């Protein structure tokens, strides 16, 4: 009995922590079902009218589409160039390697708000207007460190004699990369792409400085909307975003297994 008590209190404490973790997310999901015109928790009644109401707010749907496009673009470009850079860093020896590795890792250390301001100033000086491309460039910088960490981790443990075997059987270096190397480091690359997508899709700080009145990403739209309004439409669009993330997570789990993704992250 005396032995059980510490274990029980450990699990009880952890349960409270998990409730704390889930609370704000559950609250957003449930409040989106309220019949009232204002946000209330627990919701009064159950209705999906706030989801239907989104149709009358094309600006949310526009922002949603924009965010998806930006996140896709960021994810694809950051994954391709980040994988290329990872290969250079892991496979080749050259001067200034450590400087370059630190440089591409530094967006993790620079507060995003400062990077956002810097980018805004630079864009206005050279005359780049708010556009999906302007956003994608900013997001590539934010996501490359994640992509490279994951891809480098999968390349470091790579047994190069497998590539030698393919070469020995007659494959040229491009073929070796696409038929042998890439399939084997696939999980790191996919995990990098997904992280890049989520980071870009969620970004508020940098986007806040780059957006204009007609180019507004979803997090910025939600942020500005909630400064002035308190109606449940915000919870319905948020719930859609949460569900999207959950779907992505299930994909990660199915394709790679959670343990694997986060194990390679360290």
């Amino acid at each position, binding site marked *: 009995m005396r032995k059980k008590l510490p274990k029980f209190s450990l699990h009880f404490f952890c349960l409270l922590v998990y409730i704390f973790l889930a609370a704000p997310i559950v609250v957003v999901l449930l409040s989106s079902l309220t019949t009232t015109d204002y946000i209330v928790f627990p919701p009064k009644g159950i209705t999906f009218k706030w989801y239907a109401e989104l149709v009358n707010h094309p600006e949310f749907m526009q922002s949603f589409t924009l965010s998806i496009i930006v996140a896709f673009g960021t994810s694809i470009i950051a994954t391709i160039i980040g994988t290329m850079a990872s290969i250079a860093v892991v496979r080749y020896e050259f001067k200034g390697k450590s400087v370059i590795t630190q440089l591409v890792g530094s967006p993790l250390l620079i507060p995003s708000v400062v990077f956002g301001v810097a980018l805004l100033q630079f864009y206005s000086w050279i005359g780049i207007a708010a556009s999906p491309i302007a956003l994608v460039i900013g997001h590539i910088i934010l996501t490359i460190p994640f992509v490279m960490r994951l891809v480098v981790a999968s390349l470091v443990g790579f047994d190069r*004699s*497998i590539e030698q*075997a393919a070469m*020995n059987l007659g*494959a*040229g270096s491009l*073929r070796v990369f696409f*038929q042998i190397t890439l*399939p*084997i480091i696939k999980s790191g690359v996919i995990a990098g792409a997904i992280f890049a997508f989520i980071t870009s899709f969620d970004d508020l700080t940098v986007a806040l400085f780059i957006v204009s009145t007609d180019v507004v990403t979803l997090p910025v739209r939600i942020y500005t909307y909630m400064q002035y309004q308190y109606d449940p439409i915000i919870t319905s669009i948020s719930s859609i975003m949460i569900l999207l993330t959950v779907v992505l997570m299930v994909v990660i789990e199915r394709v790679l297994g959670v343990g694997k993704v986060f194990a390679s992250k360290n």
Partner: protein
Amino acid sequence: MSYLCLENVVKTFNKTEVVKKMNLEIEKGELVSFLGPSGCGKTTTLNMIAGFLEVDGGKIVVDGKPVHLLPPNKREMGMVFQNYALFPHMTVFDNVAYGLKLRKVSKAEINQRVLEALEMVRLSGYEKRYPKELSGGQQQRVSLARALVIKPKVLLLDEPLSNLDAKLRQEMREEIVGIQKKVGITTIFVTHDQEEALAISDRVAVMYEGRIEQVDTPAAIYNHPQTDFVSRFIGEVNHIQAEVMESNDDQPCKVSFDGYQQVLSHHVPKGVLSEFYLRPEKIQINLENNQGLKVLVERKMFLGSKTRYIFLNNNQYLFADISNTVFNPDQIKEGQEVLAVWNPEDLLPVKK
């Protein structure tokens, strides 16, 4: 000209020559082992032949054509790697078929040749498995099938058995030799295990510090080592010294091992101490007369078919391995003094 020739091949890493002007000729269908301690340059040489390392000097010629400037994918050599290096994302079938697909062989022929290759390594029925579902020995066989199916000019084996356990290792090495002889392919086998090298090779190239010390048949390597390194490296040896008693030109000379006198057929300069190596299994115990080297039996160890005796003479240890069917170990006790004898022909002069 031989089928595979290395001519003055040199490899330098950071200004140290790890392979020094190496010359070697291998005949078609021959199995030659590269044997030596780690760091002797055997794997480096293999990688230069395969094309994974560039030569820093000299030539490699296969079938009359120089290949040392070709990239590895143009050399037509099959290689079996120490850790098998199977493609983890492909089935056994696809692993073996990979080289054929690159050669644009027709589908029907690929199918036939892959199945034949798998049958040869006794893995029929495993086509659909993935490498991680196979045991180490099975992976090794897939690796062998994958290398052989493309009908390479030369088969290169890089310590292929070192990751297997002892029993499997012996089985696999017999299987590899069997297949090699059946296919008749010119083969280079890199190993640090001398028993392995002596058991399977047509010839053994003993390497040390970037040089080939001796290339010869296994028996010649064992019985007639040409260099000091080979004598010490292959098998076990006792290092013994003799005093030269009598030596005239062109005459057999008399030597004495602490009073045990023998006549040698070859000439040794007089008046100096002469050194010899003597293998433990060449020593016998003499209980019949007073001929021999007086030794103290320090210990005896029963090893099944034979017994190892550790003798002591003037603070010098002498190891002897004597078959239990020839000499019953119970005849002598530890601490007893006996006479050790050997044939003078079995003495290997130490070459300085």
